[in-house]
C-alpha cells in the first residue's frame, strides 16, 4: 500500500548544529508538504514542495519525485526548532482527497 517513511525517528542536536531529515514515499505524488508541530500541537506548514528545491531562511527542502524522496535541511539549529517534523504526501492514487503523513521525526535542540 501507499506509505510515507521518515528518518530518523528521533534526533538530538546541540544549538548551532545542522541536520538533514529524510522522507521516502512509495508512489507518485501530486503534492508533498513538510510541517513542524510545535510543543503546543500546532502544525506549521514549512514547505509545499512536490518537486525541486526551496529555501526559507535557515530551512531548505529538496524533493526528487522520480526517486521518491524528500529532504529537509535545518542549518544553525535553535532551541525553538524543537518539535516534531512531519512529511505529508498527496499521492496521485488519492489525488486531492487527503495527505498521508509519516510518523514524524522528533527533534530536540539543546542549548
Amino acid at each position, binding site marked *: 500500500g501507499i506509505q510515507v517513511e521518515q528518518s530518523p525517528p528521533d534526533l538530538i542536536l546541540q544549538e548551532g548544529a545542522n541536520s538533514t531529515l529524510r522522507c521516502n514515499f512509495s508512489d507518485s505524488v*501530486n*503534492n508533498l*508538504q513538510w*510541517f513542524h508541530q510545535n510543543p*503546543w*500541537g*500546532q*502544525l506549521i*506548514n514549512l514547505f*509545499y514542495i512536490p518537486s525541486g528545491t526551496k529555501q526559507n531562511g535557515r530551512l531548505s527542502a529538496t524533493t526528487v519525485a522520480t526517486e521518491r524522496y524528500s529532504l529537509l535541511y535545518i542549518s544553525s539549529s535553535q532551541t525553538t526548532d524543537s518539535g516534531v517534523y*512531519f512529511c*505529508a504526501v*498527496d499521492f496521485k492514487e*488519492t*489525488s*486531492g*482527497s*487527503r*495527505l*498521508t*503523513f*509519516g*510518523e*514524524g521525526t522528533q527533534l530536540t535542540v539543546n542549548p
Partner: protein
Amino acid sequence: GAGVSQTPSNKVTEKGKYVELRCDPISGHTALYWYRQSLGQGPEFLIYFQGTGAADDSGLPNDRFFAVRPEGSVSTLKIQRTERGDSAVYLCASSYHRESGYTFGSGTRLTVV
C-alpha cells in the same frame, strides 16, 4: 479569517455522550479536511469536503462519526455515543483547491472519560 479556527480547543465528555467540533476555514478556501491525531502518531485522514459535499469520507472510522459543511464554509464534525478510544486531537485543514498546500488549525483535544 486569517487562519483556520477550531472550537473548542479542549473538550472533556463522558462516555456515551454526543459531541460537536467546529472548524472555520480560511475565507475562500473551497477544500476542507478533518484529521485525527493520536499521541505519538501522525495525523490520520477522516473526511474531505469540496464545497458543500463530502467528496471522500472513507477515513471515518464508523457510523458514529459524521461531518457536515452546509454552506461550503464552516464545518462541524459530530461524534455520537463517544467511546474512550475516540480521545485524540481532531485537526481541521483547508486549502484553496485540492492541489494546493494545506493550512491546519490548532485542533480540538477531545478526552472521553
